[in-house]
């Protein structure tokens, strides 16, 4: 089964085609087909997993490829490779996809283009699965672009809204800039090694086929692609805007799966990054900066989804830091746990939005727990997992990252700790302002009610996962499930390592959690804003800076409006006036004018012509005489 894992991608792909073609005319616009498809791949995943584990460590990675094309010695094979990282990703994708599909049935009820939404969701799942299954960079790139396309279509689902269209455009173009880098990197690899196959590339690099400088440059291009997709600084701007899309989409694409594609790619290529000079340091710096900056921004956002979005960016930064430290298992583990609790949080936010009839500003909410107990409870679990409360999922994975960074140095550890405090702070703030305290807007509060079963069930399931997902790190837990052991013994770069609880780190983490959470509670608990207002008034400039997201958007806008478009106007002007009007029309005008001048030779008087002939004859005779003699 594992060597036919491509079926996982084929099923939703087929579903997309069927639904796009016939969806509108199917009963219930085909949502059942989507759920069915998600369930099927969820079940199939376990078949793949079982087979994978059965085959045992010796058989990994499981490969299966076919010849695609060949031009001379340029050969292209397409295929899949299933190894531990892939299995983790498959698990995350199929689980979250199933939850989101179920949740969407409730969330999207009565929305325009219901069928189209589900169809594109399947397209996304198909391409995301293809992305993680790909055994070569080219297929990975193809899937990479297709998930970008699905993301574009889903962000822009409400295309009647100008802001949604703009957000979709921004997401596509920003990631596209990164994709350019990725494509360049892929082609540079081909040029150096003559293959697109990831394993072969790693093999070549280990043998030293590629020169150091060249390898470093190549990896920087690859990293560019990863940064674009995973919304790392300075490409992070598209992710918060992407919240214009339907909320389940944010949960699936912009929290759990697509945005971690960059992390996946770096983890996949980690052996190469290790050998590529300072490439890993770059990864770590990027991750740290992202974690810090977006953590800070998340602290002042007032829109629930925006807080979650910046939180996601920040957590992706954490994963990059882990990878930058060279710990594939820590990064992948955080990816794994984060997928569940962040999906939970987003779906919880979606539940809030539906329950309050499309309100998502924290200033208008508050005190929701009375009206929406299930949502509140699950959201609380999610927040605590995100904040890193012992022993929830987020705690273990963050601990792993801190543990990984410990070895790298003081400063990264210090900054990461600050980022962790902020995580706890904004989680607390988000939960307190949304669910606790008094309702800020009685009008809204009076309409609020708990959402239906299709929405709460996924919440409960994900909450459960947020609690248990962290335990995968333990040796006994893993081997009980049939894995070779804990997460660290399953996913690793060079050496498997058995996890041991480091109690001093646990203590430190707990301190960080308590600091952040209590900071948040002290400022916001009881529905009061006076303390935070004082803080804002104490340093209004700093607040403005953070509130405006460090003016990244403005900076880019300025760059695009003034530099890019300005250049474009210049080129258009040049094309019109210099090339066309001067060069082309100019030569036409010159010809015309010359003709205007010369036409006067054409007097119409016969003697003049005769004269010309005579002069010509004489001249030619004289010339031929002169030449002849």
């Amino acid at each position, binding site marked *: 089964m594992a060597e036919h894992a491509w079926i996982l991608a084929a099923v939703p792909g087929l579903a997309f085609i069927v639904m796009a073609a016939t969806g509108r005319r199917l009963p219930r616009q085909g949502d059942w087909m989507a759920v069915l498809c998600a369930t099927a791949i969820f079940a199939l995943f376990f078949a793949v997993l079982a087979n994978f584990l059965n085959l045992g460590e010796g058989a990994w990675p499981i490969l299966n490829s076919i010849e695609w094309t060949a031009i001379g010695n340029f050969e292209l094979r397409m295929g899949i490779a299933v190894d531990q990282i892939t299995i983790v990703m498959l698990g995350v994708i199929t689980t979250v996809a199933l939850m989101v599909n179920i949740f969407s049935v409730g969330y999207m009820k009565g929305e325009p283009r219901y069928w189209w939404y589900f169809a594109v969701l399947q397209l996304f799942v198909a391409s995301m699965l293809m992305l993680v299954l790909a055994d070569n960079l080219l297929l990975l790139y193809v899937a990479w672009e297709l998930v970008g396309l699905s993301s574009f279509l889903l962000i822009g689902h409400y295309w009647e809204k100008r802001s949604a269209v703009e957000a979709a455009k921004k997401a596509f173009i920003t990631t596209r800039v990164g994709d350019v880098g990725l494509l360049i990197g892929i082609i540079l690899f081909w040029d150096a090694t003559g293959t697109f196959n990831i394993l072969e590339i790693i093999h070549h690099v280990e043998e030293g086929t590629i020169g150091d400088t060249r390898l470093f440059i190549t990896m920087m291009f690859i990293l560019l692609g990863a940064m674009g997709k995973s919304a790392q600084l300075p490409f992070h701007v598209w992710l918060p805007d992407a919240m214009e899309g339907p909320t389940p989409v944010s949960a699936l694409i912009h929290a759990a799966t697509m945005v971690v594609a960059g992390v996946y790619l770096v983890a996949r290529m980690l052996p190469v990054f290790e050998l590529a000079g300072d490439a890993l340091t770059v990864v770590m710096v990027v991750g740290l900066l992202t974690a810090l900056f977006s953590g800070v921004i998340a602290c002042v956002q007032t829109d629930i989804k925006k807080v979650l979005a910046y939180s996601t960016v920040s957590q992706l930064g954490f994963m990059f830091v882990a990878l930058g430290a060279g710990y594939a298992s820590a990064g992948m583990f955080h990816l794994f746990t984060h997928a569940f609790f962040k999906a939970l949080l987003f779906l919880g936010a979606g539940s809030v939005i539906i329950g309050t009839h499309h309100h998502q500003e924290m200033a208008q909410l508050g005190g929701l727990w009375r009206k929406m107990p299930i949502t509140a409870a699950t959201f609380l679990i999610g927040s605590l997992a995100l904040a890193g409360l012992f022993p929830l999922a987020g705690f273990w994975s963050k601990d792993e990252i801190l543990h990984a960074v410990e070895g790298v140095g003081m400063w990264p550890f210090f900054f990461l700790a600050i980022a962790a405090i902020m995580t706890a702070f904004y989680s607390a703030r988000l939960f307190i302002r949304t669910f606790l305290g008094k309702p800020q807007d009685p009008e809204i509060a009076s309409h609020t009610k708990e959402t239906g079963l299709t929405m709460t069930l996924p919440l409960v399931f994900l909450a459960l996962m947020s609690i248990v997902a962290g335990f995968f790190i333990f040796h006994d837990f893993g081997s009980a499930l049939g894995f070779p052991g804990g997460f660290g013994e399953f996913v690793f770069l060079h050496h498997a390592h058995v996890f041991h609880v480091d109690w001093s780190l646990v203590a430190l983490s707990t301190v960080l959690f308590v600091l952040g959470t209590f900071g948040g509670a002290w400022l916001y608990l009881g529905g009061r804003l006076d303390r935070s207002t004082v803080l804002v008034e104490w340093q209004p400039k700093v607040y403005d800076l953070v509130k405006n997201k460090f003016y990244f958007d403005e900076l880019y806008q300025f760059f695009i409006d003034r530099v890019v478009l300005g250049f474009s106007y210049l080129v258009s002007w040049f094309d019109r006036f210099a090339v066309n009007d001067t060069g082309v029309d100019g030569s036409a005008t010159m010809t015309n004018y010359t003709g205007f001048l010369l036409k006067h030779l054409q007097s119409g008087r016969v*003697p*003049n012509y005769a*004269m010309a002939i*005579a*002069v010509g*004859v*004489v001249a030619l*005779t*004289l010339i031929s*005489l002169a030449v002849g003699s």
Partner: protein
Amino acid sequence: MTTEVLWWMFAIAIVAVSAGVVFSRTVIHSAIFLILSLAGVGAMYLFLTVSFIALVQFLIYGGAVTVLILLALMLTRMGVAGKPEPTTGVQAPFGALVALGLMFTLIGVAVSTAWPGDLGGSLPGVTIETIGNEMFNNYGAPFIITAALLLVAFIGAIVIARQEDGD
């Protein structure tokens, strides 16, 4: 010796009457000078002992063509003198220059070229009979084409000169 003197007299006369053709102010005078000039050239053919061509020259040129020209003059009433307009165009001086240049070129070429052997300047062997043979044997096609040309030219002349109803 006598022939030579005679030749020179004719030559000078031809040049003189030809000059008369192009320089005289009255068209009728020019026409008469032209007849004389053509006749002079005919005489030149006699000097070269080709009596056939001389005959043709007298008949066709001296006769038919000049009659045609006179006819045209009468039809266009240009024979009626008296209009005090310039007979030469504005480019006459340049024309003279070019003509002079051409003349010197031609004379120069004629004099300076070393012509292969002088064979006497007469065509004793060429009789009307040989001309006829040549014409119909070796030059049959051009002859026929010329015939067609003449026919077309005359029909064309008729069409062009015809008085139409609208005129």
